[in-house]
């Protein structure tokens, strides 16, 4: 009985550690930047990629019809277009308004203004765009959805946001937050950070596992193919061919890095090294394959999940002052 109770306590301690909101600030600012860059990268093609039949590259209506077969609960831009039709708004106008709202929500997240509302709006609009344009979506959209989903459920606002500062300056009778309330918030912060951490561990484990099963990652041929495959072929193959002896080493290194992530990122001694290597890998993917937004979202998720603590530890070491867990 005692053992069971001890186990339960350990479980609770693991899933609800008292946590500061630094990681949440990193996630909010990072995702704000990601949403802004995502919206800007699509500004010229937004309507073209997401238009209905007869106006764009491919029909949004077909993608949405397939979505309906999967589940009627999946958000889509067609809902807004249908609403717009009720008030005589053209499809183009509705899509443009959706793009502006997405950009505004990204700016809101960056500044921490109406953080919760901005997070929900960014998640919903991005999800609508990613699902309606499912034929032209890729992995980066999935990771944005994951990040925004956790962000909107986490206890916003964080202390670095404008919301926090405004709330503080407007409080005429500043009552100190009760100890219980503060503890509850910090535990919730810890819980959502754990969820993000565990999710990242699963992502890298499965990604590494499937890579390990293909022979091409062991002999380096997949590295070569990844770098010369259109449209990722931004480096001259002549230059790449000169480095061909490095490919098997890098291929194995990536497999080890990914599959080892859930085992080494939790250990205090190896966390920093692993995290830096993973971030370096994503920087490499971004620079050598032109997948800048994909690289950015992965770095944001990693730094928020496992990096914020490292920064705090460094800060604590330098300042030599006890750090408050909660503000």
């Amino acid at each position, binding site marked *: 009985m005692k053992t069971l109770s001890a186990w339960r306590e350990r479980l609770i301690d693991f899933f609800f550690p008292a946590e500061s909101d630094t990681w949440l600030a990193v996630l909010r600012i990072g995702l704000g930047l990601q949403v802004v860059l995502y919206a800007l990268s699509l500004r010229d093609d937004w309507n073209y990629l997401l238009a209905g039949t007869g106006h764009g590259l491919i029909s949004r209506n077909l993608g949405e019809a397939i979505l309906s077969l999967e*589940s*009627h609960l999946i958000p889509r831009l067609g809902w807004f277009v249908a609403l717009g039709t009720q008030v005589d708004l053209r499809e183009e106008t509705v899509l443009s308004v959706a793009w502006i709202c997405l950009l505004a929500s990204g700016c809101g997240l960056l500044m921490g203004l109406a953080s919760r509302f901005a997070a929900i709006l960014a998640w919903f609009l991005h999800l609508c765009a990613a699902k309606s344009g499912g034929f*032209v979506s890729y992995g980066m959209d999935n990771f944005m959805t994951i990040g925004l989903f956790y962000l909107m459920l986490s206890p916003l606002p964080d202390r670095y946001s404008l919301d926090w500062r405004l709330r503080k300056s407007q409080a005429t009778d500043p009552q100190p937050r009760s100890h219980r309330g503060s503890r509850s918030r910090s535990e919730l912060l810890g819980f959502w950070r754990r969820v993000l951490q565990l999710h990242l561990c*699963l992502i890298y484990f499965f990604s590494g596992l*499937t890579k390990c099963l*293909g022979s091409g990652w062991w002999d380096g041929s997949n590295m070569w193919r990844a770098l010369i495959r259109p449209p990722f072929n931004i480096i001259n193959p002549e230059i790449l061919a000169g480095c061909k002896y490095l490919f098997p080493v890098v291929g194995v290194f990536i497999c080890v890095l990914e599959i080892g992530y859930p085992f080494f990122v939790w250990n205090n001694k190896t966390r920093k090294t692993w995290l830096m290597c993973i971030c370096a890998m994503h920087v490499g993917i971004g620079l050598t394959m032109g997948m800048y937004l994909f690289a950015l979202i992965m770095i944001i998720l990693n730094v928020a999940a496992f990096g914020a603590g490292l920064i705090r530890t460094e800060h604590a070491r330098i300042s030599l002052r006890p750090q408050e867990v909660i503000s």
Partner: protein
Amino acid sequence: MVLGKKGVYLAGLALHLFLIITVSSRDSFWLLSKSRTIFPESSKNSWQRAEQIASTALGQRLSASNPARQILTGYSHLSGIEAGYGFFAPNIPNSYKLVFELRFPDGRVEYELPRVSNAASVLRVAGLLDQIGRTRSEAFRQTMVKMLADAVWREHADATMIRAIFGSVILPSAAEFAHGKRESYEFLYAYDFNVSEKSTEQSTP
């Protein structure tokens, strides 16, 4: 936070993690059953069975209108966990290319590619071409190519015929590249779209 509330959070997390693991396993099993891996060919049936079990656990074998399936699928999409993480794994396939041959009344012939305005959109179109190339459904492929041809047609309204040529880009290995071999194209499908007949003719190699 009170213990009961923590229990609710933990139960939700358990379900969430179960879905992530099951979806990732299902997609990994699918890759193993379809791709060339370090496992023997004879193991493919086992991977297929494992994939079916994972799909059952996700409610994918229930009827499409079943509320449980609708909710599970809906939640997976809302949280971004509907797909696994086997990026560029286990092996990297060839990419695809789509070229439009436009014929004009004066006998002129022009060539066009699906056009977008920046590199970020090019990545998206490449993903779309991969889907068209990988699908086993001829109807789906034809519909998608026709929509892409329509987009080109809007830019060149005076064209009388568009031939869409869909091919695979064959990549050389590093050793082959060193010996002078470069990427080549393998013809897969061609579709003719005629403005007067509004019909589609298909030819395959």
